């Protein structure tokens, strides 16, 4: 038996990181640290019932947080919207999360839960709630990158605040590391192509405008190809609008990590 004290308003979702715009139009704007990408909304449920099941919950199919871009503003639901959200377009593995969401929904239902299961999963991050001025939100929007960090079970505690109750950790796609003269990152990926995407995303976190200069590659197989592709984007950005990066240097090697992922130390001359 559960009473009201053990029932919580719960949902699963990913923590999201992005170079968020510092000035946003009016609205009830969520704090940056509260912004997340919801994958399954459970509503009011008995947490004690769920807690013991979490260790068997299906894990995401990716070890490293996915990278994407916020490509447009959406107002949800489509009729009488009360939420402003940024829509996500994935730079890699676009169907991975959708499949994971389906698997997760199936598991939740098999455990006796009744999550809100929309017909089509719409990857988005809520940034504001009503009242808001949709025209201003549309006019001021510019594309920028985002990454998924850890996967959490959240409790909604009201007033646009959320509490983390359980976490499945993911490796960060990139981390800025110390470098005396320039800027440097540890880049992670499961394939050389993913290393490229994550390296590009690291650059875009520092300079979001570069996002328009990413070219689609069928495959990228080695470090030289990664560096050449990144430098092409830098050249194009610098030619058209200026760019804070001179180039990515031919530094380092791709390393095989113990957890079957790859890593590379990227140095960007600035």
């Amino acid at each position, binding site marked *: 038996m559960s009473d009201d004290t053990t029932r919580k308003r719960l949902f699963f979702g990913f923590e999201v990181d992005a170079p968020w715009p510092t000035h946003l139009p009016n609205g009830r704007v969520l704090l940056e640290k509260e912004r997340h990408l919801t994958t399954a909304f459970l509503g009011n449920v008995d947490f004690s019932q769920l807690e013991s099941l979490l260790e068997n919950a299906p894990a995401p199919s990716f070890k490293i947080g996915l990278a994407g871009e916020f490509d447009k503003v959406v107002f949800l639901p489509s009729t009488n919207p009360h939420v402003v959200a940024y829509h996500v377009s994935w730079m890699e593995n676009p169907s991975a999360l959708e499949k994971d969401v389906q698997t997760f929904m199936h598991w939740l239902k098999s455990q006796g839960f009744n999550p809100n299961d929309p017909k089509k999963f719409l990857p988005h991050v809520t940034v504001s709630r009503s009242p808001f001025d949709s025209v201003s939100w549309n006019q001021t929007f510019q594309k920028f990158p985002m990454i998924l960090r850890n996967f959490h079970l959240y409790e909604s505690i009201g007033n646009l605040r959320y509490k983390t109750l359980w976490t499945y950790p993911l490796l960060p796609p990139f981390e800025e590391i110390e470098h005396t003269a320039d800027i440097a990152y540890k880049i992670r990926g499961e394939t050389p192509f993913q290393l490229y995407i994550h390296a590009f995303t690291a650059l875009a976190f520092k300079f979001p405008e570069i996002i328009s200069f990413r070219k689609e590659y069928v495959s990228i197989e080695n470090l030289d190809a990664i560096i050449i592709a990144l430098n092409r984007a830098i*050249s194009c950005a610098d030619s058209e609008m200026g760019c804070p990066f001179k*180039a990515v240097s031919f530094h380092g090697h791709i390393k095989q990590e113990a957890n079957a992922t790859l890593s590379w130390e990227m140095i960007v001359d600035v």
Partner: protein
Amino acid sequence: MYNLQKKGPATFLLPQRAGMKVPGLIIATEKLLQEMENDKPFEQVCNVASLPGIQGYSIAMPDIHWGYGFPIGGVAAMDAETGVISPGGVGYDINCGVRLAIVPITYKSLKGSQKDALLKKIFHLVPSGVGKGHKERKKLTREDYCQLINLGAKWSIQHGYGFERDLQHMESNGVLEGAEIDAVSLTAQTRGQNQLGTIGSGNHFVEIGEIQKIHLSQTAEAWGVAEGQVYVLIHSGSRGFGYQICQDTLDQFVKLGLNEGLPDKQLVAASINSSEGKRYFSAMAAAANYAFNNRQQILHYVRQAFWEILHILPEEIRLLYDVCHNIAKFETHLIHGKRRKLCVHRKGATRAFGPGVEELSPLFRQTGQPVMVPGDMGRASYLLVGCGNPLDGHSLTWCSCCHGAGRARSRIQSMKAWKERDPLQYMQHQGIQVMANSFRTIAEEMPDAYKDVDEVVSACEEAGLAKIVAKLRPYLVLKG
């Protein structure tokens, strides 16, 4: 660990190890050596010593820090017949350099409102920061490029940016011979087509200040430098044009496997006399000449600002000198009493010819060439005079000197240190006004991010590379 052996004042020998063709030579005081945060720059000194054709020593200046391939603050001379040329020994920002101009007024004579107006005017006239170009100006055409890379700074002077006499006050008279447009990719030409006359971002700047103290009065007098005068210091390079030339060359050299057998891919190099080596030199010279034009045009806009705000005629603002600190040049030096043609790579290092060198204009042939050492935007910069080669007169350092204070703190550390504080207000309290396009640039470039330039310059003086002529105090700073 590196077992450095003291060789002379502020001079240490880094003994030869397996793979090194020559020993390393470190110019530094004990204090600077103790403050170095890790051994990576020394590892790079050793790597450079393995390059084919290197002569004498693989040299590190006192402002050395970790670069790609070569350390920043590295000097290496290769035999012009049997040696190699390495883009990593020049850097992405080909002919990044500094120029110093003297204004015929004292800083004390300026009113507060004039200082504000001057800084704002320069900020308006000289584009700085990411994506800032001269929007109203037409883009460089192939014909423009053909002319400017062959004429060097003279091209800008012919187009109304400055005066013919400025040329005598530039390293190599503002032109590096051997540039060819066919060695430059279209991508590089596109990247640089609207960036001429712009500072760029990072550590580039325009600084206005006061000649604070004269150390070598005879030289200062010969150069027309006096205590209390206003100076203009400009630091910029070849912008996207040069970066792309470096990148194109690295891509090509790596594809050709020219890095095989080298301890670091970023040292990739071609024989100076190979078609790849010659092509790189031609493209590098083109970028060097672009950079001379860039600094010439920036000075033009600074002169314009002084005219508009203070009614000082542009011709009254005298260019003292312009030096390169990222370059490879053919020079003749004495080795065991014989004159040898060498390709001297200076990456984050400045040529410091002493008196008597033919290439210098008559004034500097008498005194030695000026060497400018920017410190940081809060403390000081220095004007030095080159002494040629130190110690026993052998070609120990190929007439080179330091190029700046050198970073002591990473950009992330600087951002963290200043995140919760107001760096502009802090600088204002120090009496320095700073303008920049982004908070990030200011936070990353705060004085505490740099080594103490006094110590760096002292090391050069102790080692006999150059002598201090004057100490400069910045007051108005425009950052990239």
